[in-house]
């Protein structure tokens, strides 16, 4: 579809509208209106006697998420700068980064699953 048909005012108005959402989310995070406590800890329960302890797999997933997102932004802007006249496609995500993200996410889910299993065992 040829987007040159569309009026620029429509596209830029849409971009501004869409940009309001992440800006508001980041503002809420920075001002504490959106509480982020508990991002690295499991939910308190009888099976979790120390709810303030940081889970390593959550820390790993957080790091991998920021690293993956940052790395993808860098390679995109790098390819944009070199493209002539412009990119026809989003850049490929390197397989190694995809693998690292998949591993950290599967570790997080596995940890969450086993904690849930322990909760059930302790409650039964």
């Amino acid at each position, binding site marked *: 579809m040829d987007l040159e048909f569309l009026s620029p005012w429509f596209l830029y108005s849409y971009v501004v*509208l*869409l940009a309001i959402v992440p800006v508001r989310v980041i503002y809420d995070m920075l001002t504490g209106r959106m509480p982020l406590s508990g991002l690295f800890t499991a*939910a308190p329960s009888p099976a979790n006697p120390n709810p303030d302890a940081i889970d390593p797999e959550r820390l790993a997933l957080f790091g991998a998420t920021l690293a993956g997102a940052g790395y993808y932004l860098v390679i995109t802007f790098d390819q944009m700068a070199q493209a002539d006249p412009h990119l026809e*496609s989003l850049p490929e995500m390197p397989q190694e980064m995809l693998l690292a*993200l998949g591993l950290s*996410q599967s570790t997080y889910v596995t940890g969450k699953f086993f904690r*849930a299993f322990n909760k*059930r065992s302790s409650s039964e």
Partner: protein
Amino acid sequence: MSNGPNNGSAPSIPNLIVIMIILAVICGIAGYALHRGARPDDIALIGFTAFGSVILLFAAAVVWQLVREDALTGIVLEPGENPKASLSRFQMLVFTFVVAGLFLMLSIEAGDFVDIPASVLGLIGLSGGTFVVSKGVTTSVEVQKIKTDTELARIKANQPSDDDTVQ
């Protein structure tokens, strides 16, 4: 059932006036186009302007409600007795913003929709799948907790089960 001001009732007078004005504008544009013998290009432009404005207004209304009602504050919170920030929600939020933002930016720059490679779709699927599995585990634990609490309360009160009391 809540009995809101407009639930199941006819539109209010101001709403009717707005609807009538919009209809009059649309009919006016159509009549002008017919009178002037509009070409396909003109019709396409008028149609795009009308439908584009409607879509933009939809988006504006949703964004306005989200921002005004503080609805976004719960975007990373796991609902429950003690709301807690969810890492799976957070990572899905980050990847969605990054990929959607870059897609939009590159599409505007290129003047055409750019392709999305399979690895990026895989990334989105990976984060979405993690969120779904995480949500499933959390929900399963909550359901089990409710069942356990109910059973404990029943034993403590030494009452017959609900099925026995229902006539």
